[in-house]
């Protein structure tokens, strides 16, 4: 009895310590992850290898992805959990599914087939889709091509001002909608030829168009339904066209989806009811998973990862994700020793070299194995693992100066010592090194900014102690999430943690954020003092362009390059240009990649037929419960 009591108290203390960290861990996740899945990537089918078993019971699954979704209006949603629910509730022109081998692929959904585009004389590309027969809304009305036209124009409009409205920037007409002096009457170049034929024209041909068609923002909605601004907050007004209908929404508690028997592909849907429980507390999610009430949870307490992997080897899943955790520099931060006489391009080049040297000092394997512990992969490039190159291979493996390792540095454990020595040699060129103490004596002290979370703090401390080993003082400063975002965006920092999850499987989703005017340009490229620094070079004459710049500013080089990529119609050239853009970006040393993100979740071993995408979207419609 006494023993039992002691263990109970101990266990409670453990939970306690988790409770203390759990909150911060969830709230600091790097924002809505809406990446687009890799067409060739194998699906993360958790229990694919399990022996086939007969479905048992009423086929109701209880899952928990996150707390109350900000919006279940397909046009307004910008979060992963909302996207997962919308994928079950709506049916767009295309969807993600599994092919015969269990690999993820894009399949036609409302469209009869995913057609090829026809190029027009002015370089624009037109696609003509025919809708399937018998498509209906959940209230019985037919789904028409006009519903898509309405939905897309609404999602792209200024009036709605949706976070993901820019997903339509590839469609002809989008630029007019957001041009200065727009009247609000501008429309996308999308027309309903008749009730079943939809015609859309894109600015130029893009590789990921079919992925966009499966993106929640591209789902249809009906004009009379959404004219009620609160339509997406209550089951009685929620009219949708997907595999499920929303039968109950108990705010902040649970959303119930029930199989839609009128859905065109209803015979393939095996799960009769999905209860999406709404909780953002990882410890509470785990408690519900452990007592068997919930079959799938999308968040796990960070401190528990190591023990969960051991306790639930079949149920703890680590899946790939299209994202990079990195540290970014403020490019305008002075890092040369006081009294340095370098100016202009010489100064900029010296700083680039120093920042790149410091990046070599960071022990990514230690961070991944001992701190993050979630199967993350040490990163050596900014464009994340999982994004494909022109030939379908991994973009990051083809990046960087050397073919002997992937990316821009060798991040293997074996190379760490050589990296360390190379870094010291570089730094010694600029700073005074005291051989006796093995310390630099005139490196200005720096501040590392992170948002409040145990995980981010631990990584900051790891970098701090590495730098301290050679006499560089790195002070840690943490800020609450919203304040942190503001500070980082305004460039009021020297070094800050950062993270990015791509919106679709195309490296441009990692590269166009670093143009001068981009809202995500946290590094402040081309801003402040850097606006007049002419230290960047670009030569793409070998690719058929006449751009050749020696020592230009950021806007004369990088911004031009991104502009070229966006209008380039030749796939191979386009990908080569994107490699050049990443080369230029990484040469500044302002982006110091740490690891590629993974998606961690737990799923009960009795659930069969589950899969997820590298965007973090989860699919429950084809699941069966067998125990």
């Amino acid at each position, binding site marked *: 009895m006494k023993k039992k009591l002691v263990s109970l108290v101990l*266990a409670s203390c453990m*939970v306690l310590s988790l409770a203390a960290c759990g909150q911060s861990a969830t709230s600091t996740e790097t924002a809505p992850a809406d990446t687009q899945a890799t067409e060739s990537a194998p699906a993360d089918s958790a229990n694919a290898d399990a022996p086939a078993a007969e479905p048992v019971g009423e086929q109701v699954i209880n899952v928990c992805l996150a707390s109350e979704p900000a919006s279940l209006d397909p046009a307004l949603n910008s979060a992963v959990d909302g996207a997962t629910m919308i994928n079950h509730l709506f049916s767009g022109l295309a969807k993600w599914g599994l092919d015969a081998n269990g690999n993820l692929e894009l399949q036609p959904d409302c469209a009869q087939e995913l057609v090829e585009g026809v190029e027009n004389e002015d370089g624009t590309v037109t696609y003509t889709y025919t809708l399937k027969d018998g498509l209906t809304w959940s209230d019985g009305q037919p789904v028409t091509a006009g519903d898509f036209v309405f939905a897309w124009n609404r999602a792209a409009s200024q009036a709605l001002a949706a976070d993901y409205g820019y997903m339509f920037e590839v469609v002809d007409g989008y630029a007019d909608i957001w041009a200065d002096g727009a009247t609000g009457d501008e429309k996308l170049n999308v027309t309903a030829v008749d009730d079943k034929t939809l015609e859309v024209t894109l600015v130029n041909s893009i590789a990921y168009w079919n992925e966009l068609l499966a993106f929640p923002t591209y789902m249809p909605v009906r004009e009379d339904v959404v004219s009620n601004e609160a339509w997406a907050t209550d089951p009685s007004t929620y009219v949708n066209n997907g595999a499920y209908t929303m039968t109950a929404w108990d705010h902040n508690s649970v959303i119930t989806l029930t199989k839609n028997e009128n859905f065109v592909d209803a015979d393939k849907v095996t799960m009769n009811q999905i209860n999406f429980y709404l909780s953002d507390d990882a410890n509470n999610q785990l408690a*519900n998973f452990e*007592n068997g009430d919930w079959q799938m949870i999308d968040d796990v307490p960070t401190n528990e990862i190591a023990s969960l992997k051991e306790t639930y080897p079949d149920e703890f899943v680590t899946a790939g994700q299209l994202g990079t955790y990195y540290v970014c520099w403020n490019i305008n931060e002075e890092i040369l020793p006081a009294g340095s006489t370098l100016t202009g391009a010489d100064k900029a080049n010296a700083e680039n070299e120093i920042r790149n040297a410091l990046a070599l000092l960071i022990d990514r394997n230690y961070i991944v194995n001992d701190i993050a512990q979630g199967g993350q992969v040490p990163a050596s490039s900014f464009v994340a693992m999982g994004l494909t190159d022109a030939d379908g291979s991994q973009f990051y493996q083809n990046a960087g100066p050397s073919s002997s390792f992937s990316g821009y540095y060798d991040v293997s454990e074996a190379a760490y010592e050589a990296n360390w020595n190379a870094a010291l040699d570089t730094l010694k060129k600029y700073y005074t090194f005291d051989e006796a103490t093995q310390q630099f004596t005139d490196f200005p002290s720096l501040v590392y900014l992170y948002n409040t979370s145990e995980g981010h703090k631990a990584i900051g401390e790891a970098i701090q102690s590495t730098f301290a080993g050679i006499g560089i003082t790195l002070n840690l400063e943490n800020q609450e999430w*919203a304040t942190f975002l503001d500070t980082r965006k305004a460039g009021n920092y020297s070094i800050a943690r950062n993270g990015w999850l791509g919106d679709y499987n195309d490296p441009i989703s990692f590269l166009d954020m670093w143009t001068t005017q981009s809202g995500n340009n946290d590094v402040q490229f081309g801003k402040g003092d850097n606006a007049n620094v002419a230290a960047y070079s670009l030569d793409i004459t070998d690719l058929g362009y006449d751009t050749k710049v020696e020592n230009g500013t950021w806007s004369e080089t990088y911004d031009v390059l991104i502009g070229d990529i966006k209008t380039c119609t030749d796939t191979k050239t386009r990908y080569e240009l994107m490699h050049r853009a990443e080369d230029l970006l990484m040469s500044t040393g302002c982006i110091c990649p740490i690891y590629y993100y993974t998606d961690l979740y737990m799923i009960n071993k009795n659930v069969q037929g589950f899969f997820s995408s590298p965007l973090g979207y989860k699919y429950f419609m084809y699941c069966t419960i067998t125990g």
Partner: protein
Amino acid sequence: MNTKTLMYIVKRILLAIVTIWVVITVTFFVMHAVPGGPFTGEKAVSETVMQAMEAKYGLDKPLGVQYITYLGDIVTKFDFGPSLKQRGRNVNDIILDGMKTSAKLGLIAAVIALICGVILGSVAALRRNKLIDRIIMIITTAFVSMPSFIMGSLLLIAFAINLKWFPANGASKNGLVLPVITLSLYPMAYITRLTRSSMLEVLGQDYIRTAKAKGVSGVKIIFGHALKNSLIPVITYFGPMLAGIVTGSLVVEQIFAVPGIGRAFVNSITGRDYPLVMGTTIVLATLIVIMNLVGDIMYKVVDPRITLE
């Protein structure tokens, strides 16, 4: 009730209105002074989208104008406006939803705490220094000194994970049992101790001795004289306590994932959902002010010797 008391109550109500107005004003300006905004996220939206959003919700107007519009909407329409984060939902609805759960949870917990606390406290007082008194004192000391997050976690492990008697999620069927227990233990222990010491004091009074000497039965002494008089400190404590637990306990709501007002409040602050921050602050402040007022009036009702001024 005499005029003096009435005047007192009117004065207190007026003062309460001023208090709430001050709370509104301070919160409004401090909230807007804090860095970060409702539309900033890890992924920045473009400048034009940001402007369009701000214009849509009137955040592009000068702060003074926003403040006056806001006050006007509350006073004339009792409208807290739309949520900036949960698009399509009104703050009024969100608060109502949260309050339903929090009030249910809080009221049940408060009633349990009051009943059990008074009974245990009386028993302890009447059996002073006996074994039962000792046991009650030890347990209540433990409960008073144990923070709710420890108690909540203990109950969760024991009854939700190991024994599986109750769900771990507050939104499930019977989900409120564990949160109610967690929430009620501290005030129950506190009330027990208050009742005990106050009853001991009353039992030592002359009129109790007189009653005993007159041969009044023990039951009548306890229920007719001692208990009523020993409840005065309990009543003063009960008002603010009720406000505290009805307005939501963030810790308990977090541990058991209860969809209450406490969670909505904290999330609204981290998300800079200005109208929801204002709405929850105003509702919570109002409740606390009212509960304190009711507590003071009850004080007078139980003990006519007290004059309110």
